[in-house]
């Protein structure tokens, strides 16, 4: 067994969160979302449904977008986590996608926005790596980057619900960073 094996109901976990090393003794029941919000005071990631059904809790783990409400923190030992607070990196400047959301007014209440941003950043990397989606032409050549039209953006971001219905502007903001 690796060092993560401990007989009790909690374990020590090492993470890098937004570039900073973090070591915590976590209860095995702790999901990443609660760890971020309650233990690290990073309240950007939101809890909408707590069951994988809304995307408000989306963060990047080792560069891949995941629902942090369904990820047990203890399973993530050694991982690199990026939340909405870390999208812009170390600098003062927001991530270009955050800038585009502001320019396009791509939110109303803003509750879904951190999840939309992290999801879109992860999604852009997937398309660049040649990952197809449900609406990609099956005859398109495998492995080459997928061009993102509106249908592609909508389908690929379908895991992020917006109760305010800001979808049209969210799609426009994503289009802005692709161009």
């Amino acid at each position: 067994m690796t060092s993560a094996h401990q007989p009790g109901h909690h374990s020590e976990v090492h993470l890098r969160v937004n570039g900073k090393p973090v070591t915590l003794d976590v209860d095995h029941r702790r999901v990443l979302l609660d760890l971020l919000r309650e233990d690290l005071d990073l309240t950007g990631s939101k809890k909408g449904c707590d069951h994988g059904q809304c995307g408000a809790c989306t963060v990047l783990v080792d560069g891949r977008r995941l629902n942090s409400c369904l990820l047990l923190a203890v399973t993530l030992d050694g991982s690199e986590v990026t939340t909405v607070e870390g999208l812009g990196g170390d600098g003062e400047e927001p991530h270009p996608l955050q800038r585009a959301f502001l320019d396009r007014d791509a939110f109303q209440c803003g509750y879904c926005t951190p999840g939309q941003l992290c999801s879109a950043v992860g999604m852009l990397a997937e398309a660049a790596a040649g990952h197809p989606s449900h609406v990609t032409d099956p005859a398109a050549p495998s492995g080459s980057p997928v061009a993102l039209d509106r249908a592609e953006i909508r389908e690929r971001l379908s895991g992020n619900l917006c109760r305010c219905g800001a979808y049209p502007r969210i799609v426009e903001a994503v289009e802005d960073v692709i161009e």
Partner: protein
Amino acid sequence: MNGFAYLRPTGVQEAVDAYAAHPGAAYLAGGTNLVDLMKLGVARPTALIDVGRLPLDTIEERPDGSVRVGATVRNSDLAADPRVRDRWPALSQALLAGASGQLRNAATTGGNLLQRTRCPYFQDLGKPCNKRAPGSGCGAREGVHRDHAVLGHSEQCVATHPSDMAVALAALDAQVELYGPEGARKLPVTDFHRLPGEHPERDTWMRPGELITGVLLPATTAGVPSAYRKARDRASYAFALASVAVVLRVADGVVDQVAVAFGGLAHRPWRARHTELALLGAPAGPAAFEGAVALELAHAEPLRDNAFKVPLARNLALDVLGRLAPAPAGV
């Protein structure tokens, strides 16, 4: 949620041994179903054996033209694999029709096969459900069952299996590779999930403590035209009301190879053997397709509120068969 021990074995044997040593344990992979059910109180493991990082995350070609997919390959990576997209397109399409980008990044091949039903009574501790609490009754049979089974259900349970991936695997004649206390064995995906019968609490024919180590995509369906289509209540991010995977090869206008599997209709992916028997050797065209699909769906026994699934499944099957059949020469 009660507390639980957490173990992260580094190999298959170690995982199986850990399971045997911890009564009440469960394997954990992507966690997208198990953690959800633990939050709901439906699953209450005393120990989690994390198999998500076992070295089963590769997709390997075999000399005989088959491909082995490791149990921890993520759904998004499997759907994007060029070999899968080119040779078994129905599998890639089925994966991409399921869940969301985030969930597919976490969900594994093994976990997807073993995800539990989405029946709302199963997920609600306050309701009767023979699958969750054997003998408590089936809330859905006379209750809310629009999403439930029309084929192969029993007095005890009318649930459907929710996986899209499994439906494609069933049509593609894939096999599940297992390893457990009694050694290694393989089961065809078509014989992997059970019908509910009198024991709806058992979803599959797996033995206690067995681990899924991988899935084999056979050479017999490699490169044969295949496709998947799913109908759901919204355009994306919703489970199937009905779905179909079709494998179809036509030679000189005659059906030379065919497999049809329905999703969303039964407790397991439903291979339409009557349809397949009727089509093999028949001229590939709308009349033969219609007759053959009707033969299978004649066995449907819809519940009060889900009869709509029968024509829905029929239309999906006819559409996909029609698309996969080459246009007759000279047209």
